[in-house]
Each structure stands twice: as structure tokens, then as C-alpha cells.
């Protein structure tokens, strides 16, 4: 496979996943803001969403940190390279640059998403019915992944697509959890009270994992269990452990396919072992935020190592 094609596939699926995760972040902000006691947090929900999105630096410092402005920035702003609109624009541009590497169904999913998103009525939907807009975005991600899953050849291209998906998803689950960090009151007295628990369930909701949580734990919500579900539980499809497992597997498939191993394979296994060997008590005691920051750093390095191993970026 052409290196340029592999790189395009990798980034294409990262952009689709990123768009969806921007929507999930907003869902969390939206729900937290509905809470009467939210004002007791030391920062506003929308400010947290912005921080966790990683695009705060591009936000107009004079603009109010309200739903309308922040959502508009995260969805439609052309200067924000991670805005949902830009994610779909880049994804489609990548797809167009390698139409032969994706199926007609995948192309149609991306093309339709962008065509709809460019419609002026989408601005109204996002402004007046944010939850509905968020559902629309999640649906586009599902359509693309569904089209991919049911139509693409299981060759190396598939592996690069999946690598992109899980590298991005791992990053985003870590960010979702971090919103909680930004919102949470620093005083330990607040931990475990009603507000705190509500906020934790919001994280679950944004990860579309509320029901799954019950099936797995058959018990009440607790920050401990929720964090476990999203970080260490390999059965949870958005957990860091699951993402790391998938990344390891797809890199392994590439190694077998090409008969070549690179340092990236070692790095992926290290990341996976870190997640299988940690426990939540340890993570909470050293600090959730610190753990997540460290994980995001490793994940970034892993992405660079993939690019290096498969000759992305020409020579």
C-alpha cells in the first residue's frame, strides 16, 4: 500500500472519530449545565469543555463562555482545526485524495455528512437543539464505521483505519474524563456527594455507556467504578484499555502482513500492559489528572511512531 494512502486512511478515521468526540464533549457540558448545583463548581462547564477539547487557545478570550458561543466554536469555526465542520472537511478531502482505497459506501457516508453539515439549517439546529445536533454527529460516525466494517477489505488499509480510530478514541476518552477533573471541586468534602455523582454519570452518558455500566457492575455509580469502566475495563468499547488492546492487535496484524517489526510494536505493548497492570486505587492516589496526562503523552508518541514505521509524510 502506498505510504500516502496509509497516512490518509489513518487520518481520515481520526478526523471522523474526533468529530464524534467533540460532540460527546459537548453533550457532557450540556448535561452538566442542566444541573441546578453546577454553579458550585469552580469553573463553568463550558469552560471545562473548551479546556478538555484541547482547542482553548484558539478561542476568542473576549467571547463569553456560554453554550451558544462555545458550541459554535467547536462545531463551525473554520479557524479551529478540530471543529466538527473542519473534521468532516478534512476527512472528506483525505477520502477524495485516495478514492481507490475506500469503498463507495464509505465515501457516500462521508460525502453525505459534509453536504448536510454545510447546510445553513444546521446552524439553527446546533443553536436551538444541541442534543439533536449531537445525535446527528454521532450517527455520522456510526454510519461511517458501519460502512467501513461491512464493506472494506480486511487488508493493511483496514488496519490503518482502525489504528486511527483507536488512537483518537483513546485520546478523547482521556479528555472526557479530564473534563470531570476541570469541573470537580478540589475540596475532598465534595467528592461522593450528589453533585459529584451526577457529574460522573454524565461522563458515562457522553461515552454512551450508561446502560453498559449497569450490565457490567450491577451496582450503584461510584467514581471509582465509572473511572474503572472508562480506563481499565477491556470490555468497554471506549475505555483506554480497549483502545490500547485494539491498537496492539492491529499493529500485530501489520507486523504479520508485512513480515516487519518496528519499535512502535514495543511501545504499543508497553502502553497496553500499563493499563492491564494498573488498578484504580493506585490511579486515584497518584492523581487521575496526572495519569490521564501521562497517557495522552504516550498515545501521542505512539501515533508518531506509527507514522515513522510506515513512512508517512513522504521521505
Amino acid at each position: 500500500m502506498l505510504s500516502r494512502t496509509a497516512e490518509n486512511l489513518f487520518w481520515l478515521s481520526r478526523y471522523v472519530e474526533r468529530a464524534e468526540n467533540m460532540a460527546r464533549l459537548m453533550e457532557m457540558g450540556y448535561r452538566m449545565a442542566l444541573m441546578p448545583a453546577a454553579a458550585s463548581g469552580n469553573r463553568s462547564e463550558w469552560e471545562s469543555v473548551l479546556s478538555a477539547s484541547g482547542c482553548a487557545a484558539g478561542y476568542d478570550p473576549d467571547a463569553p463562555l456560554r453554550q451558544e458561543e462555545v458550541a459554535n466554536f467547536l462545531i463551525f469555526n473554520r479557524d479551529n482545526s478540530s471543529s466538527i465542520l473542519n473534521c468532516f472537511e478534512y476527512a472528506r478531502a483525505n477520502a477524495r485524495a485516495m478514492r481507490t482505497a475506500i469503498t463507495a459506501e464509505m465515501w457516500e457516508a462521508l460525502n453525505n455528512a459534509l453536504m448536510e453539515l454545510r447546510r445553513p439549517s444546521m446552524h439553527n439546529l446546533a443553536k436551538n437543539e444541541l442534543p439533536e445536533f449531537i445525535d446527528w454527529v454521532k450517527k455520522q460516525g456510526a454510519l461511517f464505521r458501519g460502512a467501513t466494517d461491512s464493506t472494506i477489505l480486511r487488508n493493511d488499509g483496514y488496519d490503518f483505519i482502525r489504528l486511527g480510530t483507536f488512537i483518537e478514541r483513546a485520546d478523547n476518552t482521556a479528555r472526557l474524563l479530564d473534563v470531570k477533573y476541570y469541573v470537580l471541586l478540589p475540596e475532598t468534602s465534595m467528592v461522593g456527594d450528589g453533585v459529584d455523582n451526577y457529574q460522573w454519570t454524565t461522563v458515562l452518558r457522553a461515552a454512551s455507556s450508561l446502560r453498559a455500566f449497569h450490565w457490567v457492575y450491577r451496582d450503584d455509580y461510584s467514581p471509582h467504578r465509572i473511572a474503572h469502566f472508562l480506563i481499565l475495563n477491556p470490555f468497554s468499547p471506549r475505555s483506554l484499555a480497549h483502545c490500547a488492546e485494539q491498537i496492539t492487535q492491529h499493529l500485530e496484524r501489520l507486523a504479520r502482513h508485512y513480515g516487519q517489526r518496528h519499535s512502535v510494536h514495543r511501545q504499543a505493548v508497553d502502553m497496553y500492559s500499563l493499563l492491564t497492570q494498573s488498578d484504580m486505587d493506585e490511579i486515584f492516589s497518584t492523581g487521575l489528572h496526572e495519569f490521564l496526562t501521562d497517557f495522552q503523552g504516550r498515545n501521542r508518541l505512539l501515533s508518531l511512531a506509527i507514522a515513522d514505521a510506515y513512512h508517512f509524510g513522504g521521505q
Partner: protein
Amino acid sequence: MFNEMSVDDQIREPYRALVDWMEASGPEVLEQKRLEAETLFRKIGITFAVYGEGGDPERLIPFDLIPRIFTSGEWRKLDRGVKQRARALNAFLYDVYHNAEIIKAGIVPADLVFRNDAFEPAVIGIDPPRNVYSHIVGVDIVRTGPDDFYVLEDNCRTPSGVSYMLENREIMMRMFPDLFKSLRIEPVESYPDMLLKTLKSIAPRKCDREPNIVVLTPGAMNSAYYEHSFLADQMGVELVEGQDLFVHEDRVYMRTTRGPARVDVIYRRIDDSYIDPLCFRPDSVLGIPGLMNVYRSGGVAICSAPGAGVADDKAVYTYVPDMIRFYLGQEPILNNVPTWKCGKPDDLKYVLEHLGELVVKEVHGSGGYGMLVGPASTKEEQAAYAKRIEADPGDFIAQPTLSLSACPTFVESGVAPRHVDFRPFCLVGDNVRLTPGGLTRVAMREGSLVVNSSQGGGVKDTWIMSD
């Protein structure tokens, strides 16, 4: 004007079943189908960008639902005529890069070939695989009467539009399954397979295995990018850009996730002048430095071969009937349009005196740009154009304004005749192959003769009825 559907209110045979069907369906159904077709095109993403016009870079070419239909008898003549031309053009190309017999025989003037910008001294004496230069010949044909076909021009480099032939058919079969069931229409879908066979058959001398074939595109910003990716996909070969290829020693390789992979046949959709910055334009970022050296030493085949453009020059065109007689010893089956060469003093005089009746074209132009359509022009435009001709007469040719045939076409006011032309795609390799079909282009504006998609022309499916 010859209306291909009806003559003196009599529906012509090939259109009868279609007309019955259209009448039975009624205008609402047809309008509904038209909207469906547009949605389908947009969904698939077949678009065509027009250089320098701004606006939507992914504009759709208007697709007209009403097919253009040829009888099997009409097609037999076109088929033989097009293949004959493709053979003669390739014989001419081999000749001018070797012994130039046709020039020695005094049939084609030396200056016209050797001083032509498209003549490529770098390939003199090289024998391309099977001595073929132009592997895909797109012949533009117009019709003026039931039996009167004229060749308007030949395209020997990288004729585009074949993806429309295939996609138009795909859409028509989705929209009108009943018609396809009840009529016997020759299929066109074997084109990509035939193209692949042709490309495999021209593997270079040094290739000792199943050749690795790629399609070379300038990139996603090119107006024909859709077609490049479509053909690569249909053939199951890689679509590469210049940056993906490199020369190492005497071979060409592409960069892959596994490391370098050797490339044997390049179906390039970029111009000669861009393919190798060491040999041609040094400022080209699209090309592959050193490619021409590999080509010369038989390490890679290039389709179309560098230098093939000298055969489709508009001034060389006028000699194609002579080429057919000279190389094949046959009489041309398809006629040329009578042409005045402004480089000749007598012709120039005639052209300047009759600008209002003629179509004048730049010899090296393409895409319908920079031409004067006499009857549709104002006095001022004619005067301005006359100045351009006088400044460099050799750069212009003129032809009579042919009364192009028309086919029924969907327009705002309903169904009305619009002028059409036709481009079949002839493949030349180990064999000369021609798919029964082609691209029918239609001028969407009433009375307009300009069918180029870059100038707002549309396309139609073309049906060849089988016996």
C-alpha cells in the same frame, strides 16, 4: 438540422421504444427521474471542476436522462472507422520518431511535425513496447445526416470522459431497468478490463513478471481527478501522484508502507512537459526526476508514450486521411471536416473573408477555449479575432459551421432537440479494442454548438442497439 430521433415527424427506428416509454410515463415521472439522477451523481461524487472559473470546485456536469441511440449498422461503420484511425495515428507516430517516411514522401510537411511544440526530440529512435504511442485514442465525431459522420478531432494523449460513459450507464440502468430488460443494448462495462489488458500488454522490455501498473494523477485538485481514481479503482491498480514515485538506478519505484515497490507500466494523466523535471519542465513538482532515462532504457512503459501529442495537433489532423492511405493502403471510413489552414495564404484570405460563417480554432488549443464560432459572434468579436489570426496565421485553422445533429434533451421548457457530438474510446495494445459506446456530449443551450463540459455542456448515455 438532422434530428436523430425524428425525421419529418416520423420517429426513427432506434428511438421508437424509447418514445413509447416516455409517452407512457408522462412528464412528471421523467422530472422525478431527473431529480433522482442528479442526487445519485452528487452522492457518488462525480464532479468536474472548471479551471479559472471560481465557484463550486466540484460542479456537476449536467447529465441528460434521454439517451442517444445508434443502430447496430451505424455502429459498425463507426467502429471500423475509429479503429482505422487509431491504427493510422499510431503508425504515424512511430514513423515520425523513426524514419519519417511520410515526410520523405512529401505527404506531410516537415515543419508541421518537427517544429511542432508537441514533437518530442527526446524520444526519437526509442521503440516503445509494441511500437504503440497512443494507447487510448478518443475520436471526436459529429453527425450531420443519417449517414454523414465527420471526425472533428483526435485525442491521442489522455482523452478524458470515459468515466462518464461508465457512470452514465450505471445510473441509467438503476433508473430505467424496464427499458434495459426489453431492449437489447450493448454493454459498456468491460471497458476497465479491456484497458487493463491493454496496459498489461505493453509491459516494458525489462519486465520479467506480471507487470505492476499504476495510474499517475496530478492530484485531487485536477478537474479529471474523479476519472483518474475511478479508472484505478475499476482496474484494481494504485492511483499514485508524482511524490509517490521515485527512480532508483534503472527502475521506477513507489513508496509503500512495506518499503519501495517496483512499477512497470504508468498510465499517466499528466502532460508530457510535467512527467520528468530533469528532461522537461524543471519547475514541475508533479513529475518524477529521471523517469525518462528509465523509459529510454526499457525499464518502464508510459501510456500514452511521451511525444504522442504530435498526432492530435489540429494542423496535423488535416493529414489523417492521407496517413490512412499511406500506412494502411485503405480509404478513410470516416471523413474529416473540410479544413482551411490559415498558414496557407489562399486559405487565410478565404477565412478572413468568411469569418462570419466559419468556426476558427487555435491549432494547439483544447477544451473549446479560444475559438470563434462565426455565426454566433458579433462584428467586434470577429474583428478582434481577425487581428489574432493575422498576427500568427499558422496557429489557426477554420472549418465550416457544420449543422450538427440534435438529440431530444431535457431543458426547462420540456424536451427539445439539442446539438450533440460523440467520443468513443479506442484502446491500442496487443489488439485494437473498442467498447460499443462512448461519451455523447450535448450543448445544453438552444442553438449552441459548444459541447465542452468546461463550457457548460452536458452528457448523455449512448446506446448501441445490438442485432
